């Protein structure tokens, strides 16, 4: 595959490291004082282990690890490998966490 890094241009996918599903939502941090209940544990287990694994468009995290080291969110069709969109993960994360900041 050839992936277009938002910063470096098109590169062979072997320059990138794959992490996987970018759609899983990380549960909110648990306040250290309170004990961890089953519901919390279940939420984290879902986040850590369970995936949609779709056949079709898939939003996934890649890092241009042998290049600029930017993390990217790549939308890719898992049936054809066609790449539909590439976005810098950090920009998306900033938008997502604007409130936290």
């Amino acid at each position, binding site marked *: *595959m*050839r992936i277009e890094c938002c910063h470096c241009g098109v590169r*062979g996918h072997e320059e990138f490291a794959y992490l996987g599903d970018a759609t899983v939502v990380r549960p909110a941090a648990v306040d250290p004082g309170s004990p961890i209940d089953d519901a919390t*544990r279940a939420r984290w287990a879902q986040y*850590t*282990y369970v995936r949609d694994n779709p056949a079709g468009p898939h939003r996934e995290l890649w890092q241009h690890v042998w290049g600029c080291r930017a993390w990217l969110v790549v939308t890719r069709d898992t049936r054809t490998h066609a790449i539909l969109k590439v976005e810098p993960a950090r920009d998306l994360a900033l938008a997502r*966490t604007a409130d936290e*900041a």
Partner: protein
Amino acid sequence: MIDRTRSLAFMFDGRRYQGYPGDTLASALLANGVHLVGRSFKYHRPRGILTAGPEEPNALVELREGARREPNTRATVAELYDGLAATSQNRWPSLRFDLMAVSSLIAPVLSAGFYYKTFMWPASFWEKVYEPLIRRAAGLGRASGQSDPDAYEKAFLHCDVLVVGGGAAGLAAALAAGRAGARVVLCEEDFELGGRLLAENRTVGNRTGAGWAAYVAAELAALPEVRILKRTSVLATYDHGTYAALERVSDHLGEPPPYQPRQRLWRIIAKHCVLASGAIERPLVFGDNDRPGVMLASAVRTYLNRYAVAPGRRAVVFATCADGARTVADLARCGVSVEAVVDPRAEVPPPMKAAARAAGARLISGGAVRRALGSLRVRGVEVRTADGAIERIPCDLVCVCGGWNPSLHLASHLGARPVWSERLAAFVPASLPPGMAVAGAANGELGLGDALAAGARAGLAAAADCGRAGQSLDIPDVEPEETGVTPLWRVRASRGKSFVDLPNDVTDDDVALAGHEGFRSVEHLKRYTTLGMATDQGKTSNVNGLALMAEFTAKSIPQAGTTTFRPPYTGIAIGALAGHHRGKDFKPTRLPPSHRWAQQAGAVFVESGLWLRAQWFPRPGETDWLESVNREVGAVRTRVGICDVSTLGKIDLQGPDAAEFLDRLYVNGFKSLPAGRARYGLMLRDDGFVLDDGTVSRLGDGRYILTTTTANAARVLQHMEFCHQWLWPHLDVQFSSVSEQWAQFSVAGPRSRDVLRKVVDHQYDISNAAFPTMAAAELTVLGGLPARLFRISYSGELAYEIAIPAGYGEALWHGIMEAGSAFDIAPYGTEALGVMRIEKGHVAGNEINGQTTARDLGLGRMLSARKDYIGRVMSERPALLAPDRPTLVGLKPIDREACLRAGAHFVGAGAEPTAANDQGYMTSVAFSPTLGHWIGLGLLAAGPRRHGEHIRAWDPVRNGDVAVEVCDPIFYDPAGERLRA
């Protein structure tokens, strides 16, 4: 195209022959009257030469000798060179007389898949008797079994337009795109450009076909942005315009010239691709159609027209398509008598009639060859005439043409299925990979004129799409030709064996049997009969095979469909896919700053990851490694030693939110870490298991220096980047690896301070009071060189880690050795380092193995309750909190002489070593010269509660079974006075 001025000597099966430059081994053998070239896979039938190209199923030989021997080499593509030596395969004792041929006698028993039905009794016989027999009988050529002496190379090639194939269509495409100024790469598998133009007796405009090809080649060669790669097969299509191509740089020579590789693998990245790979002719399925002398009509024309070789004297032409006429004409022109033209069509088209008449050949319309006669070479054919009469016609050459199959492999590698064309009675490409166009015979445009026009169109369009508009080529006119075909999938009521797949000896009966037993899908047909699975991948047999299956199962051919097309298009040497990266160059080698010194000091080195590290430094007189390592440990424990620890990952972290970032990253807190101090830290993965450990030092200017283990350096940096960019983007931190920038040496031992005093510039006070344990400072050494000093001890002694810009590393090392000579300083390697960390009960890679939690490692107390951190929630899962989880302990042999081994499993003292009694295992061991016996660390169920207990360390794979005492993992100076001294 053959240069008769110079002759080349070559050998086949030990006999000497002569050929000429421009010959292939096949054409040269034919010129020398050699038609018997090999033996078949299963029945060991005599086999000759069927084709003149890469699709050759039969003429496979062992090329070259010794370590360079290449089994299964197609004689039809092997270029002749002076001194070439080839040997026939799969026969014993000789090619003409092959005892294994008896297998034909029991052929009926050896029907498709017979081996699934027998060889089952007794079970033990399979490995001992049956399988060895089958393996020896199977297989074709012999590998050399020796290391390949030649070099290979890989290279990248970027272009606008990749043209696959240098025949009429490909040349036209390259010319159109090249003239437009596009960056063009033209790959031609053959050693000459021209494709069928070299093989056919025809004209293009006012030139011969070959002449036109040469003329275009010359113009292409002159275009600056056009690159012509001959002897280069495009092997595979991959995603997003990536293609793999193999250039046979030196295969046409005895051996590669100096500094040249044998072959070069090109990874071609192309915006567009014009697939002009031509078409492959189909043989016909009739009795004993495998006899040497039965040859594709197109191949016969190639040998006549290109190589000036007559593959026989008396020919019979058995044709179902237009090429029959061309073949008859060429044969006659070259003085080969055409005994008969057998055309199954009742209504034979006029050109064929004319050709036969002109050649004075008898035309048998509506007839069919039901059998080829002869064994080591055809002697004649048995023909069934339209009225059913059987006639024998003597001949020594049978030219067969059953129509053409476009070479569409590269169009289908991404999964697209070709579609059936009734007009051509062949599959043609349908949907194409993005950026690919197909032109010429590869697209079913069989006529020369059509091929030229289609090629030019495709080349022009591709260039235009890359922003290089050009003018359309004016196509020289060529005489029109008829390209019709009336398919004949097999000759019914044949005599003898009718082969569909020659190399794997698959007959029409086998296809029928497969259908009969339920293997009706073409994929089942292939797997059950092995049709299409040999070295030629069924280039000449697949379509005949699936057509027969369609017939037997009363399906249409498109319903039957094709099998899956897979790379590579033709076989590629595995060495070429490895290129430069073999032997010592398999992976690059990382060298730490003290490497040169260590080499001169005669160190023994060990690979750790990509690094090469000094394992120990033997001294004259020392006889075994343990002696050296004990001495090195002794030196550190009693005096002082120095060890290169530059391989640790080092990360420079800055920014206002640095402390917050660290707090979330590590399980323990860092907000409270004051400047000038270091702290040990532990990181978890999201799933709660330990990721890595290391130290964090806060320097004067408020920046932090993190160290990681050598093994996890890359993974930790990646993890931090993930956290920073994806989880906590709003934190104002910046970090980058400084692993390469800083050499770092551990100076350890009671005298280490004395040594460093002489190295560190005097204005800096490194006294115990001023610079206590876990102190960190930026300072200068050796009169002004910038350095960093950390009072960190891995060995448990008074110890420091001193860092300096890597270029000064050697200087600092020498400086320390010099300053240390007064104290008899000793360099020590990874072994001694390991011994001392075990004596101190520090965990390392053997314990932090991705399967252990902080609690398992006795580090539970580090888990902060005052903050959140990565992995916290998942580390609290019930199974990970279970009190009986294997947990870190120390172990000593009861018999102090006994030796411990990592990997041994623990069982209770009296208990049997069974799965039920498995209580953990030994993670690390060392001989402790300090204690005078072996010691170990291990993970033992409920370990911490069992100190003092005696258990077994069971190690059957090394015949070990040692009684050990469970103890605290810290064997040496548990109170830690020495390092605070």
